[in-house]
């Protein structure tokens, strides 16, 4: 997994609540058996005017000029600003794969759906929950200022705005550790093989029918 330490990135505002994973990556792209290459189809139905299918040359497709991610002032954005319940719906990890492949590294929102939130951390994406009022303020600031960037410091758990204002954020200690060091969960868990085996012995004795 790609490490995440410090980032200064352009912010793009996606001003709608309950953005679901079907919207982030429509189902026809889930047919891939790979992990990469989903970026050009992130938000496909909002981003393009035609209907997207796997295998199309996306560079030739008509873009929806009204969709915020297509606006030139937000080109190259690495920070997505969103509203509540971001990432709801299907558990598809293709959603964070698509966002990451698109170039995003941080998502700021008042709340996230649990599975999506979890999936982000496995893919080098940092989702940050902020107060709804702070998010609201950021929406106003981003829309008012072309080229608005934020500094996100995971080690210090601090976001710094262009005018020097600092916003502290919470992050789970274990997830922070994994993200800072780019650690693979499976390797970490396998350090506890003895614990797992001991549990299994006890569990099998208590509920032998689970092992029949």
């Amino acid at each position, binding site marked *: 997994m790609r490490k995440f330490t410090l980032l200064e990135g352009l912010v793009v505002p996606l001003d709608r609540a309950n953005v*679901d994973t079907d919207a982030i990556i*429509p189902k026809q792209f889930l047919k891939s058996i790979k992990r990469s290459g989903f970026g050009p189809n992130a938000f496909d139905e909002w981003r393009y005017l035609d209907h997207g299918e796997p295998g199309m040359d996306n560079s030739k497709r008509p873009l929806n000029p009204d969709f915020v991610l297509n606006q030139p002032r937000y080109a190259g954005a690495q920070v997505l600003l969103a509203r509540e319940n971001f990432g709801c719906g*299907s558990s598809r*990890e293709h959603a964070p794969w698509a966002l990451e492949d698109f170039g995003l590294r941080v998502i700021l929102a008042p709340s996230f759906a649990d599975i999506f939130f979890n999936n982000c951390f496995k893919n080098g994406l940092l989702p940050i929950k902020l107060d709804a009022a702070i998010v609201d303020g950021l929406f106003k600031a981003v829309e008012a200022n072309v080229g608005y960037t934020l500094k996100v410091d995971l080690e210090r758990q601090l976001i710094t705005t262009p005018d020097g204002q600092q916003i502290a954020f919470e992050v789970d200690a274990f997830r922070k550790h994994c993200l800072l060091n780019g650690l693979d969960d499976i390797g970490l868990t396998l350090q506890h093989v003895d614990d*797992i085996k001991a549990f299994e012995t006890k569990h099998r004795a208590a509920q032998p029918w689970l092992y*029949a």
Partner: protein
Amino acid sequence: MSTKTLYDKLWDSHVVRQDADGTALIYIDRQLVHEVTSPQAFEGLKLAARKPWRVASLLATPDHNVPTTHRSGGVAGIADPISRLQVETLDANCAEFGVTEFKMGDIRQGVVHVMGPEQGATLPGMTVVCGDSHTSTHGAFAALAHGIGTSEVEHVMATQCLVAKKSKAMLVKVEGTLGRGVTAKDIALAVIGKIGTAGGTGYAIEFAGSAIGGLSMEGRMTLCNMAIEAGARAGMVACDDTTINYVKGRPFAPKPEQWDAAVAYWKTLHSDAGATFDATVELDAASIRPQVTWGTSPEMVTSIDGRVPDPALAPDAVKRGDWERALAYMGLTANTPINEIKVDKVFIGSCTNARIEDMRAAAAVAKGKKVAANVKLAMVVPGSGLVKAQAEAEGLDKILLEAGFEWREPGCSMCLAMNDDRLEPGERCASTSNRNFEGRQGQGGRTHLVSPEMAAAAAIAGHFVDVSKV
């Protein structure tokens, strides 16, 4: 803590180790596998030269991409080459790693959340995961069940464990008797209407109360299936005789010599009297009416007696924007009575409502009637080959076919339209599935979530009707 919730009991009995900050390794008893969220996990195992920790805990079936018509060509006959590759990849991975798989053509194949319980592969007291958000379905068996991402699919395959933190516990209590024509689906939608699609975020929900105790296992699965639409990763119902009787005799159920011990343990799987919850929501069963969603999120729901809401009356500006966008997408005008909304297609199926009881409910409404002329397609897609066979043994297929419904092969079908079953832009559908998101059933398609009874009644009338009055 002397009194425990059901969730506490399930959690505590699966903690392998726990760090001071609450991050735990949870042991997983069962992982269900389908073709969409598993290929990258199997690939990860291969790249790291790992083997599944306990291969017998895995059970696979293809469901999302399988065609619901013309099965005669087998996997090779799947028209879309990319869908075909995904099903072939699942078959190849299962063969390579020794995973039990119910392939296309096997009567046991079906939507993963219908197939698992039907086989007895979901048992009370288990932890169950699947790379699919509707894994919450299995909580109906007093199991701790939730969806996981593909990285976690690989993690559970490799270690039999999941890294997790305990959620808060929410009690949703539904007391009383459901009215005529009111089902578990209506309870689920009413709960979501009440708490919102993020209302359960961070919680594991236990559904309890006399109305829940009165539901069949099929009904409880419908309810727990929709817990994820309320934002909760897991939904669950205590174990009782209904649970035990359902499990008895199924292929993966405990063998006779272990049965009594299993039942004795299962009977402890309920919240203790006096157990405390972090949140409680109460509903009166008698006041729940048949539900119909009008928007693009399951919380945008009202009853059949209701009207499409007016965005001008939304509680705040963000909601107003959401409602306006939803009405524009749905092609609806504020204040339209729900029972005047006409439908173009009807879909009865999905892991929410494609079990035998749902087939019976649809057939009971359709019996002796005809699908309305304005309905272009009314399709019934059983949740598994076994559901299909059972329905056919009861003659339900004949009733439905005579009424003008199509009777299909099992799979996810138009729940998410990954195969050929989909809505065309602008088409309006009465659907028994669980998500009405934009584009879910086909780009530009308009989904109204309802119970099987309500979907069948809409097919017959050509518009939504109060099934309690037909």
